[in-house]
């Protein structure tokens, strides 16, 4: 039993518990907070997988920028009326059945296929090889993504106009 295994258990459990609480909690702000926690513990799993840069990006972009946007919109819309509506029992049962069937099938397939049976954790990549890969082979997709961000920004400005038709 190594320290890595213990940390894997802690982070995996934290991620899954936060995911469950995100689905279950009635208040949207609580859901957002649990999503922040789930993302932070996923960043911990990324560190265990030697993806240090991605862990930092995960915390900065997801837990920082994206979730601030979410919470901002929740506060803006003042969503509190979740309490008075009841979810139908039948659709609830059907949803749980569907999701657990998908999860069970995925997990069973992964376990039985034995993809990682002969694989050892071998990639010792830090930030430097990732950056080299990103700016040599993948420089065109990188530029296209920057154009995509610009397009998203223009779209958001257009969508947020007062007299949208």
């Amino acid at each position, binding site marked *: 039993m190594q320290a890595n295994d213990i940390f894997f258990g802690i982070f995996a459990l934290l991620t899954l518990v936060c995911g469950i609480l995100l689905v279950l909690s009635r208040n949207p702000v609580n859901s957002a907070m649990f999503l922040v926690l789930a*993302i932070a513990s996923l960043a911990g799993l990324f560190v265990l997988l030697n993806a240090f840069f991605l862990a930092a990006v995960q915390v900065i972009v997801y837990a920082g920028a994206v979730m601030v946007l979410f919470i901002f919109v929740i506060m803006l819309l003042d969503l509190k009326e979740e309490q008075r509506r009841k979810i139908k029992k039948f659709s609830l049962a059907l949803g749980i059945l569907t999701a657990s069937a998908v999860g069970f099938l995925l997990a069973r397939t992964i376990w039985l296929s034995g993809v990682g049976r002969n694989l050892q954790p071998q990639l010792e990549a830090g930030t430097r090889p990732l950056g080299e890969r990103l700016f040599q082979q993948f420089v065109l997709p990188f530029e296209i993504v920057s154009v995509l961000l610009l397009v998203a920004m223009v779209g958001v400005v257009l969508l947020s106009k007062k007299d949208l038709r």
Partner: protein
Amino acid sequence: MIRLEHYLIVSAVLFSLGLLGVIVRRNLLIIYMCLELMLNAANLALVAFSRFTNHIDGQVMVFFIITVAAAEVSVGLALIVALYRKRQSAHVEDLTLMKL
């Protein structure tokens, strides 16, 4: 010893939790958060594959996924705000304009 399967199973369970939220919840914002959870599950699987098969391309792909997800979140939230301004509601049950 933690192997690839363990990471992949955590990813699969996380993905199905997100799917459960998308199916069961009726609040548009929470559905959107559950979609983010599903994206993150896919990211975890990609990073795990990248570590165990000695290719760094998986991490490059996760980088792009995070960027595209940020763009997607901004556009989606702007759409939800525009919708709320028009309908005063963020519940999927109230959005029946295209129902026959």
